[in-house]
């Protein structure tokens, strides 16, 4: 059971503070914030999500720059508390449409109302947006979302791409539209995070896809939904060859493992790979999956560092987009740690480069190369000339790198897992809600070694 729950801003101000059991002193918010801010233990730079100060256990998760914190004196299940903190954030987001410091401050009374029902005397009562609806009386005060950074992977849909209605993800589940009627729609997002490590010679050392099928339903009356995946999806590689690259080329999608939301029925899953569920209100993951089967990495990275005379070296970075030209990656950032004695860097972009930026971060000795977008099939190169303040020790590749890359590719997924169709149990002939099935791939740990 937990004793207190509070939300702190980046500066450490209390935005919401709720004491459930009165067995932890009120000063806990300050104790917590000081500890997190000035964490230095065992050479760790960052406070772990759970720590103990004077017999009080502090749990925290960081969400859109805010700290969601719970305290307790008992030896509880840490997973339970951390899941709960995430879930509280999600419920709040469902209500407010958008989770930011401003929206929380404007709606703190509503948040208190929620907290009162979610936890009683430290015990979780419910975290279902649906169930909570009947207990909540405050109307959310909607914050203008246009200019604000948002929460979660789905937020990337807001950037450009006219095909997708960006407002939907920031729409409150409970608030009424200005027109009085809610638009009947449902969103299914297939979000994949990929991790790849390339060796110096370009060979793939490890690769993994961590995916989520996320759903957000604005359908009234909670109709049953059928979600069909590719029929050739198989699950489980039966342990033994856990990380072998066996199934390549066969075309089948082989997931190592997956888990499902409580509401999902798997009665037909073995038969025809359909998931049936009655989606609860709000945003939730229908299914999480993990895949280590070989796949084609969306980008190839070539990185080279060479000595070029005394106190000088040259870096050449080449990235090639290996996905179809119908897709476009955006917000690409390539980073590379340089030798610690690098004093100056001059960059040379390819002729005619548009929407690219380069930087040398003096303090952390890191090279950064940002690209607004890369169309499938394109290749880009960066040359950088380094000046050193001292003679290098010989092997430059041990002093620099690895190169890491961040990117987002909408409407593309590396695993080839697909939602074949999304069937909504019909209430009437006229009932034809909007259905959005969207794919996106993001880099998790995308690294090339030198």
């Amino acid at each position: 059971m937990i004793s207190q729950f509070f939300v702190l801003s980046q500066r450490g101000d209390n935005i919401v503070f709720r004491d459930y059991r009165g067995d932890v002193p009120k000063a806990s918010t300050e104790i917590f914030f000081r500890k997190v801010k000035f964490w230095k233990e065992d050479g760790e730079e960052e406070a772990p999500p759970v720590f103990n100060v004077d017999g009080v256990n502090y749990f925290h998760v960081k969400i859109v720059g805010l700290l969601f914190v719970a305290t307790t004196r008992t030896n509880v299940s840490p997973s339970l508390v951390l899941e709960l903190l995430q879930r509280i954030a999600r419920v709040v987001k469902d209500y407010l449409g958008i989770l930011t410091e401003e929206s929380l401050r404007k709606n703190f009374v509503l948040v208190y109302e929620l907290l009162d029902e979610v936890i009683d005397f430290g015990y979780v009562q419910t975290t279902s947006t649906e169930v909570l609806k009947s207990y909540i009386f405050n109307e959310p005060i909607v914050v203008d979302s246009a200019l604000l950074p948002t929460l979660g992977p789905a937020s990337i849909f807001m950037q450009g791409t006219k095909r997708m209605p960006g407002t939907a993800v920031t729409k409150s589940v409970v608030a009424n539209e200005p027109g009085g009627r809610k638009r009947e729609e449902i969103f299914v997002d297939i979000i994949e995070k990929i991790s790849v490590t390339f060796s110096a010679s370009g060979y793939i050392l490890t690769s993994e896809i961590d995916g989520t099928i996320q759903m957000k339903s604005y359908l009234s009356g909670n109709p049953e939904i059928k979600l069909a995946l590719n029929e050739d999806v198989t699950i489980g590689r039966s342990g033994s060859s856990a990380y072998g690259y066996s199934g390549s080329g066969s075309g089948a999608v082989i997931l190592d493992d997956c888990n499902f939301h409580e509401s999902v029925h798997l009665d037909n899953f073995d038969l025809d790979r359909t998931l049936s569920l009655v989606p609860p209100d709000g945003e939730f993951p229908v299914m999480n999956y993990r895949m280590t089967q070989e796949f084609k990495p969306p980008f190839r990275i070539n990185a080279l560092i060479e000595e070029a005379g005394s106190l000088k070296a040259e870096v050449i970075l080449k990235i090639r987009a290996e996905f179809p030209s119908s897709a476009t990656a955006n917000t690409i950032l390539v980073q590379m740690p340089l030798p610690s004695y690098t004093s100056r860097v001059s960059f040379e972009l390819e002729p005619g480069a548009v929407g690219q930026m380069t930087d040398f971060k003096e303090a952390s000795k890191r090279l950064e190369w940002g690209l607004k977008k890369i169309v499938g099939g394109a290749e880009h190169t960066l040359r950088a000339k380094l000046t050193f303040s001292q003679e290098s020790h010989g092997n430059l590749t041990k002093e620099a790198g690895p190169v890491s890359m961040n990117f987002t590719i909408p409407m593309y997924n590396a695993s080839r897992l697909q939602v074949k169709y999304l069937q909504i149990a019909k209430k009437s002939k006229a009932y034809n809600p909007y259905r959005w099935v969207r794919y996106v791939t993001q880099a998790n740990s995308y690294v090339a070694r030198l």
Partner: protein
Amino acid sequence: MAPPAHQTQRSPSPSQPSGRSEVSDLKLQLRQLAGSRAPGADDSKRELFKKVISYMTIGIDVSSVFSEMVMCSATSDIVLKKMCYLYVGNYAKNNPDLALLTINFLQRDCKDQDPMIRGLALRSLCSLRVANLVEYLVGPLGSGLKDGSAYVRMVAAVGVLKLYHISASTCIDADFPAMLKHLMLNDRDTQVVANCLSALREIWSSEASLSEEASKELDGLLSKPLIYYLLNRIREFSEWAQCLVLELVAKYVPSDSNEIFDIMNLLEDRLQHANSAVVLATIKLFMQLTLSMTDVHQQVYERIKAPLITLVSTGSPEQSYAVLSHLHLLVMRAPMLFSSDYKHFYCHYNEPSYVKKLKLEMLTAVANENNTYEIVTELCEYVANVDIPIARESIRAVGKIALQQYDVNAIVDRLLQFLEMEKDYVTAETLVLVKDLLRKYPQWSHDCIAVVGNISSKNVHEPKAKAALIWMLGEYAQDMVDAPYILESFIENWEEEDSAEVRLHLLTATMKCFFRRPPETQKALGAALAAGIADFHQDVHDRALFYYRLLQHNISTAERVVNPPKQAVSVFADTQSSEIKDRIFDEFNSLSVLYQKPSFMFTDKEHRGPFAFSDERGNLSIGVESADNVVPAQRVEANDKDLLLSTSEKEESGTTVNNGAAYSAPLYDAASAPLVALDTQPVAQALQAGLAIDDLLGLNLTTPAASAPAPPPLKLNAKAALDPGTFQQKWRQLSISMSQEFSVSPQGVAALTTPQTLLRHMQGHSIHCIASGGQAPNFKYFFFAQKAEDTSTFLVECIINTSSCKVQMKIKADDQSASQAFSDLFQFALSKFGMP
């Protein structure tokens, strides 16, 4: 109106003037509104209430408007009511007189038509936390528990618990626990059931120490009918309540293995839940259920691997850390079962260091013949990492793997390459490791020393690294041309050396160097002893003086004392005792796993966790098998504990044992002129009785274990019996009364082809095996024996390494005074093993 969002950086203190004037302003406005029935009054009230609550949130004391708030609360606006309740709950405790004001309207609201209002009022009433108001709670709580609305019953169940914490006697006297029990067994609504369960668990476990009845009721929570009742409904519970039920069931002791399998089959699909708390609670349950069924237990490991890894990679970084900590625990317990999953433990460049640290430990643990090359290659990449603490950890990891004796050859090359990187911290870590490696594998000295000799001592700054370098200079003085001169330069800087450890090492190393190369070292030794004797640090001073006296007495004796031939270290001792590890495992799915310490080390007794009461009971489940007499004690094969034969630890275990046959050191003529010229006073000659001291210490340096003394008079019961559960319990309760390391005869090792052969042999000596496991070269056994005359028991953990012919033995005994006799007997029995 928004709360004062960005006004200050830190929450203002209550005394802040701006806060005070605004509060009195609020008070005034509230008073004006209190009686108003004007249209729109509620809206204005809402705004004012919001302001009050927002001040309360940022820490401004607004208790002074208490009476105005109460006056304004006579309203039908539920939003207003809620804000008022929140306010009252926050300040009532410190303003009990004012709280009385609220009782009236709360009691009235408890009878409202709307169940929502009833529930809210009841919750607020119970949250007042004022002891002298409890009499007002009993009535509303009683009717709340019988309310037609599940929402009200839900609130009432928790309300009973709140009452209990304000006034336990009022709660017990009103017979609320019995009412909760009735609800728990009969309510249709699962959240009501869950709340009753939570409340009863808390109430009964704190009452259990006071009343027999309560402790019986507490046991009743683990009764078969209740457990089955909850299990059968588990899918109706919310995911959070499921965790509660699973936690409870983990303490339940099934009567036979069919029951175990039924429960596991029923809950199998919980492992596919997206909520990590549900999955971990299920895993804990499966682990506990199968503790005594080794093969099933192992299957559970196989089954839970994939779900755990999925949770690690799909959750938020925080959730994934919590799951990874649990995976870490399992990997450390049974590394072999995870050896093919090592790639999942590779670090991502963007992970926080607390995650990377766990992963490095896991990689170290799972390294074996098949994956070492890849793991070490990966670790070497991290050594060049910009994150220096992780680079250090990675080097240590490589070293630990080397100490695990797989493919040492290649690893030593890698370590030596680190030295060539010429980064100070890399050099420092590597030196420490090379030293440990040399202690275990003296045969590598040639390669290592060549590289170490090239290191400029000026680049070594850290005390540990310096100490390691100095140790090597002393130990390998004959192979390192410059050793005396490097030591000399260290001695010249004696004054600047802050670390006493380094100075101690310097003394010893100079001594050793002197024995090998006296003419070159004489001057340095003189300087070192002089500096040492003048040292302000007690230990350094004493050791210098001791060396000086030794040298004065007799140089060859001094050499035998300071630099005797050494046996390579075979196993470095574990840093955490197995008892501690078992405790942590018992507390799976709790903070203990994240902190890597059992709960008693970080929390006081009353907060030991919801199920701490069943500490003893938890262990009983282990004994299930034997209660059925399904498996005779001897055939209970090693459970996962015995898979844990890591040899990768930090400290050298207790005593190094001399087998007397290592290399012989050159002797110097004791009469050769006084090599040390020091003008101190004559020193008493106290060291003649060398032999007597040997006897005193009970050291038997020359006698190999094979010719152990004749069996001592301790008599053991040949038909001793002990079930595994009792063994485990005893093992945890008793402290180690004796820990020893000795050698086993080559014949014994030859005969030890499988663990079973030894079991039969030891049984012949009335020493029985309860569990065994491991693979060549490491075998691990748990033995027990009983005295013939009484039932006093001896427990033994025994690890036999067949490649080094070493036995490590830990004895725990009911009668500690007899453990020496038993140890002799045990060694005697073991020494006969393999003899015709």
